[in-house]
């Protein structure tokens, strides 16, 4: 922890980030999911823009230079692509939204009778485009919120909070995920190497020809990592009595079955009575199974992230945004969903906007990353 020089305002400013005061990765995810839930409750482009702005500001203020922190830009691009795709589909396939403001008409492709209800081309109205735009913007905002969590929280750190029985599977997943960026790097390297052979670096043929070496390289690397993990004690297990092992299996399997049956009961029309208790019992049994299974692993955790007051504040601000937006749906539904038919300009409702700004809290309370010279 950073030593404070004296009491006063400095006590409340965010400390410089280090391993010791790192914010729990789960807090960042809760905050981002809170924003995402809020985004899913509105189609008002001004509010959505505000959400994106809040997420972007926090990312800009608190992300590090680490490679995983660079994913934010990719998510923003993906979001824009989603908006674009949504609008293009609406243009081409038409929309059930009835509209009166006709913009232009695309040539319509005649379709046989059995394809009734499907339309390609045809009339394009302003209402339909605005609806597609709002809808796409909502999806894009959800994606950007996920991207913000990705950029702010190290995925490997989140793993440390998994129960012991799931940790090893988790490591395997994380290692597997690192292969995507490695393969992208390989493709780039081999494509430039093609230049050295005097071949063009672009085109389908280039990709096909380097495909095999890239896969070979990925395979070799995964074997090397597996060997290294094995030599460093991955998968060491403690001896547990056979009875404990069997109980673990019964509890986990039984618990999962209970969860399945319970959720079916909840969703089906006639099973509401037994659904909830079955689901609860299944969850309990599965948790007990996981806990017991954790005894088999000998591993310990090095400096797990602590859930401190700052984590409460960050996670709380995200949850607050979600709750306030859900509540806003009750008191100002029309402001959150600006009309499309008839077309009207969206306006910025005061209270929902203020409640979104609560999401800015992490930019002030989360530990600030070191400034790089």
């Amino acid at each position: 922890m950073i030593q404070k020089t004296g009491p006063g305002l400095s006590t409340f400013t965010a400390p410089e980030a280090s391993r010791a005061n790192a914010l729990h990765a789960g807090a960042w995810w809760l905050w981002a999911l809170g924003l995402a839930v809020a985004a899913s409750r509105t189609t008002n482009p001004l509010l959505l823009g505000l959400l994106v702005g809040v997420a972007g500001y926090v990312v800009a203020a608190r992300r590090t230079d680490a490679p995983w922190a660079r994913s934010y830009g990719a998510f923003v691009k993906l979001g824009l692509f989603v908006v674009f795709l949504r609008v293009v589909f609406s243009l081409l396939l038409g929309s059930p939204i009835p509209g009166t403001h006709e913009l232009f008409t695309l040539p319509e492709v005649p379709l046989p009778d059995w394809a009734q209800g499907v339309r390609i081309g045809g009339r394009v109205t302003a209402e339909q485009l605005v609806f597609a735009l709002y809808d796409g913007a909502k999806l894009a905002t959800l994606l950007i919120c996920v991207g913000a969590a990705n950029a702010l929280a190290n995925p490997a750190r989140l793993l440390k909070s998994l129960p012991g029985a799931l940790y090893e599977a988790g490591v395997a997943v994380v290692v597997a995920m690192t292969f995507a960026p490695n393969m992208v790097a390989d493709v780039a390297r081999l494509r430039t190497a093609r230049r050295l052979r005097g071949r063009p670096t672009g085109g389908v043929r280039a990709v096909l020809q380097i495909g095999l070496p890239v896969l070979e390289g990925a395979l070799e690397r995964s074997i090397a990592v597996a060997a290294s993990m094995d030599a460093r004690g991955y998968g060491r297990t403690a001896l547990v009595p056979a009875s404990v092992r069997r109980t673990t299996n019964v509890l986990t399997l039984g618990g999962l079955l209970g969860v399945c049956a319970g959720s079916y009961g909840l969703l089906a029309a006639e099973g509401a009575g037994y659904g909830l208790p079955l689901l609860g019992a299944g969850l309990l049994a599965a948790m007990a199974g996981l806990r017991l299974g954790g005894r088999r692993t000998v591993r310990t955790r090095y400096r797990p992230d602590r859930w401190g007051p700052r984590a409460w504040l960050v996670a709380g601000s995200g949850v607050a945004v979600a709750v306030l937006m859900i509540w806003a749906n009750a008191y100002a539904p029309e402001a959150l969903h600006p009309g499309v038919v008839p077309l009207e300009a969206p306006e910025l409702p005061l209270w929902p906007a203020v409640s979104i700004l609560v999401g800015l809290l992490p930019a002030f309370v989360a530990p600030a990353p070191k400034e790089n010279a």
Partner: protein
Amino acid sequence: MIRFENVSVRYEDDTEPTLRGVDLTVPEGELVLLVGPSGVGKSTLLGAVSGLVPHFTGGTLTGRVTVDGRDTRTHPPRELADLVGTVGQDPSAHFVTDTVEDELAYGMESLGLAPAVMRRRVEETLDLLGLAELRDRPIATLSGGQRQRVAIGSVLTPHPKVLVLDEPTSALDPSAAEDVLAVLQRLVHDLGTTVLLAEHRLERVVQYADQVLLLPEGVMGSPAEIMAVSPVHPPVVALGRLAGWEPLPLTVRDARRRAGGLKERLEGRDPAGRLPHPAPSRTGAAPQAPLSGLRPVPRASTAGGAGFPARTRLNLSLFQRRRTEPETPTPLLHVEALAVRRGRVEALRHIDLQVHAGETVALMGRNGAGKSTLLSTLVGMLAPTSGTVRVAGRAPHTTAPGELIRQVGLVPQEPRDLLYADTVAAECAAADADAGAAPGTCRALVSELLPGVADGTHPRDLSEGQRLTLALAVVLTGRPPLLLLDEPTRGLDYAAKARLVTHLRSLAADGHAIVLATHDVELAAELAHRVVIVADGEVVADGPTAEVVVSSPAFSPQVAKILAPQHWLTVEQVEEAL
């Protein structure tokens, strides 16, 4: 500590066993160095200690390997993890987590050590290896030397009794290599760790070894005994054998104490006149001994001018046209005020460099200094941010690849990147087609540089040195007057290196200009007419090899250190002078 009893290892498809009947005992707290030419099973022997051979690699192991009394037959690698720490050839394939501190803790977490113990050991190891400043850094952002230290640190934290390292310094610059070796020596001296390591660059490690194990004979003995008979040996040993010093010196310091007599005999003789491959700028005409498969490259007159400083030329050109200076030939490679930015990093800043036909230039400098970036810019893989690059009058990044390969060829750090085909024959046919050369050109080069390689061999089955030579042949098919090599001796044994040196010398004699980026000071001493030292993206020294290298302790070869202040660089020069 480690016992091998009549151990043989054979992999499935091979007819011959890789290791045969090895018997050895490594006592506790010794640093044992494994030496031998490529392909004699050094990596297999190391793998057998950690149990990865045969548990992970497959194959059949007969005999018995025990480590601290544990039989590897009944203990898979993970059950030996608390006893043996292994670092393979490529440290980046070793990492499981993504930050330095987590990586150091990973092994201990797997073993289930208490959090307080882990915390203490991580702090100790950070200090021991000088990694404290890097503790929060993502591993992806580290340099090669830093990665190697993190990899060693990550196996040290569980306090293994045995440390197994496969070529720990091959990718490192001389000073980073010294750091790593100093750490190993400290572990042996202070903690009593047993260290078993394989390394091709003996000049770096032999003085640290307590015992040397020579493969394939399987003899173990003191370094001096083994070096007296070993076919692979560092230059200091070669010089000692030449001068008949007894006992054989292993360190530069020992050798220098005995070098008085030799220095007297060499006094008054001129090493420069005895360069086995005279620089074109010094002697005018180089000996013409072309490889039969190669047409000599048309070369400009090279009287004077190779050492001409670029700045002066710039000033001159303000007042007179270059064509009016008949005594200054146009350089084959002309780089002026070159700067390259990668993202926010200025990888190169204001580089001036000229290379003439027939000249060999070594680019040296620490890991990450910008050597590879410079080579990539010269072949047009990167566009210059500012400044100009001209190869035979063309700007590489705007020239079509097909045309460029007839002007400049690069053998990359990983020669495998250049090879796509399934067989050597197919690779050669493709190279002929790419370069527009007559069919059979590449195959003729391969047969000459690499005798005895069958057409049907898969490039992956070649040894490191053979693969490099194949890539070299592919590049040479286009007959580029300018040849670039990036770290050509990584993973090569002395024999493969000697063959490479011979090839490159005859290419230079044919009028090829060669630029090689290397950490290998001995290679630079043997080949280069000029050494250019790059630091932090700038050229900090540029001059004849003897002058640059002798004045810099990190980059001088062993012979130069022993015979300083005389300007001898290689054992070969001394031998010829005597």
